[in-house]
């Protein structure tokens, strides 16, 4: 039983002309938190669905806990838990009723269910909401309830598809605390996310883009591939700001984001005063330059640009 918890090889899935997942290969070790990171449409959901056995791949193999998911999807279902990106519980059932339903489907003895529900709800600060309809919970609480239901049958592996998107910071912290607890119990966790700060908490990451794995490594090694820092400038004349900043020394690249620009620089401490001076000199209106956590997009742009330069 030393093989990987999840082993994916050559996984491919197309929808018409769109190849959502393209010869994807990676493996997840037992008891690790493995992150699937990628921008919208990278193929995260499709990958997780195929591993959960709810979607058939066009090609490739998936082994979960020694079970071949492609040939026998039903065999994997009692062992893993899947938490879809879209809330999948019954909004017209209460927290307790949802938990009970999933516990019964997985044939969990009553005593065990009561005990686990108590513990899981306590861990996510949800005990006082047990009688509330799931539809009346906040976004964060919904996700925590989803996780509770997913964990009620003590699965060997948990597959979470963007579980914290749109979740408040407090709930997010609860969520991750539970995940770390699970890892300590030896549960394998596969989580997809579009947040890089979350990705950093994973033991390993696969960076996904257009259905392919760009990099698969620990967060530290991935970050090492993107040295320097990310600065943000909010400005009404962001295009002018971009054109100006792009020519300055120490700037690797500039990206338009929402209401401003993200600037990848080699050294934050040295470049912030230089940038501020240059923008002031050009008469551009802007809010103070600050350092930000690089987003997944930032990481992708800088990694793909580096690859292009190297080529």
């Amino acid at each position, binding site marked *: 039983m030393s093989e990987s918890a999840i082993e994916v090889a050559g996984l491919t899935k197309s929808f018409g002309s769109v190849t959502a997942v393209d010869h994807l290969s990676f493996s997840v070790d037992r008891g690790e938190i493995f992150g699937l990171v990628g921008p919208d449409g990278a193929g995260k959901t499709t990958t997780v*669905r195929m591993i*959960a*056995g*709810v*979607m*058939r791949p066009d090609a490739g193999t998936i082994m979960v806990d020694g079970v071949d998911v492609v040939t026998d*999807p*039903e065999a994997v*279902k*009692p062992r*893993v*838990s*899947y*938490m*879809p990106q*879209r*809330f*999948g*519980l*019954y*909004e*017209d*059932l209460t927290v307790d*009723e949802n938990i*009970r*339903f*999933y516990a*019964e*489907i*997985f*044939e969990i003895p009553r005593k065990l269910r009561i005990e686990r529900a108590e513990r899981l709800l306590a861990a996510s600060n949800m005990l006082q909401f047990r009688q509330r309809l799931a539809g009346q919970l906040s976004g964060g609480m919904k996700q925590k309830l989803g996780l509770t239901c997913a964990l009620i049958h003590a699965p060997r592996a948990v597959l979470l598809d963007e579980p914290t998107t749109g979740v408040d910071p407090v709930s997010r912290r609860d969520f991750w605390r539970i995940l770390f607890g699970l890892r300590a119990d030896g549960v394998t966790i596969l989580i997809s996310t579009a947040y890089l700060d979350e990705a950093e908490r994973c033991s390993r990451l696969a960076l996904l883009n257009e259905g392919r794995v760009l990099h698969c490594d620990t967060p530290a090694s991935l970050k090492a591939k993107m040295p320097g820092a990310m600065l943000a400038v909010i400005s009404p004349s962001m295009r002018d700001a971009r054109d100006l900043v792009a020519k300055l020394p120490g700037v690797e690249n500039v990206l338009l984001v929402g209401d401003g620009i993200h600037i990848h620089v080699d050294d934050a401490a040295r470049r912030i005063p230089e940038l501020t001076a240059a923008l002031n000199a050009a008469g551009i209106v802007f809010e103070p330059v600050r350092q930000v956590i690089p987003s997944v997009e930032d990481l992708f742009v800088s990694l793909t640009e580096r690859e292009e330069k190297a080529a």
Partner: protein
Amino acid sequence: MKLRRVRAVVVKEGLQIWRDRRSLIIALLMPFMQMLLLGYGVNLDIKHVAVCTFDRENSQTSQSLLKHFQASSYFAVKHVLDSYKSVTTALDRGDCVITIVIPPDFSERLRDSGQSSIQAILDATDDNTAAVATGYAQSVVSGFSDEVQLQFSGIGGASVAAAAPLSLEARVWYNEDLDSRNFIIPGVVAVVMALVGSQLTSLTISREWERGTMELLVSTPITSMELMIGKLLPYFAIGMLDATFCLGIAVWWFGVPFRGSLATLTLVTVLFLIVVLSIGYLVSVTIRTQLGASQIALILTMLPTMMLSGYTFPIDQMPDFIRPVTYLVYSRYYLTALKSIFLKGSGVVDLWFPILIMLLYAAAVGTWAARAFRKSLD
């Protein structure tokens, strides 16, 4: 199959039905309203069919036959005519839908050969009314005599096929008061049950797809059969309540005589309900949007039940190429069984054929529905 999972689905579905109070009330009130609507609607349509008479014999026997037409509340005798020319005029002007012509040798032949015929001349522009009027005329005529078989034959452009006397006899025999409501109401029960039953389940799977709960459900070890049975059971309970309402309205409101046993009635109703619930479920499994599923279920149940079960059009008057199709219409068997149980008091043994067919139907549609459900998002 794990009973525990079936029970979990029953509880979950039951809670959802209970909390969706509006749909529940509609599901329970719908049969009431439809029974009354269709029950009265049908009666209005068929009462007081305009009839003209042309008695070419004017004997005591012929007059007595015509009195039967006058006495029947399903006919309103508009004109008493005295020539074929006036018959044509009356029909052309739309004064009546049907004209009964008694030939000059009517009672003579009846006396000599024990057989005789009268003519029914129909305005066939409205096929439906014509068919219904013919049916009534046949009933009146066979009601007229217990011992003598009468036949009629048509003349002119619109003709009436010589009806099989036995089927005529059967109609009147068990419905002495010639109250066609007694025939119609069991049909209304079948129509309402087909509609309500299939509508109940037609949304149950598509709702899970639309609300996004199916994705999680298919990732669990639940089997297709467990899901189906768990989902059908609560609706079965509601369906049985609805059936009780419908049958109660038939007996106590419309006064249809009930001569059979409650056990037989329950058996055929349970079978029919399983068939229509399974059809609704099958549609729900196949069509992923609630609106689409509900409409397809409506078409699949209402259309054949209204058109091909013998409810609107008597099966023996259907064109030859359509009649075989009616054997495929499950409501036909429930309709037959209901009429027999109500009016003849038939038991399980008499009804072995419709019961067998409904049993096969239930098994076939149920299996099909369970198979049709794929635990997959593809």
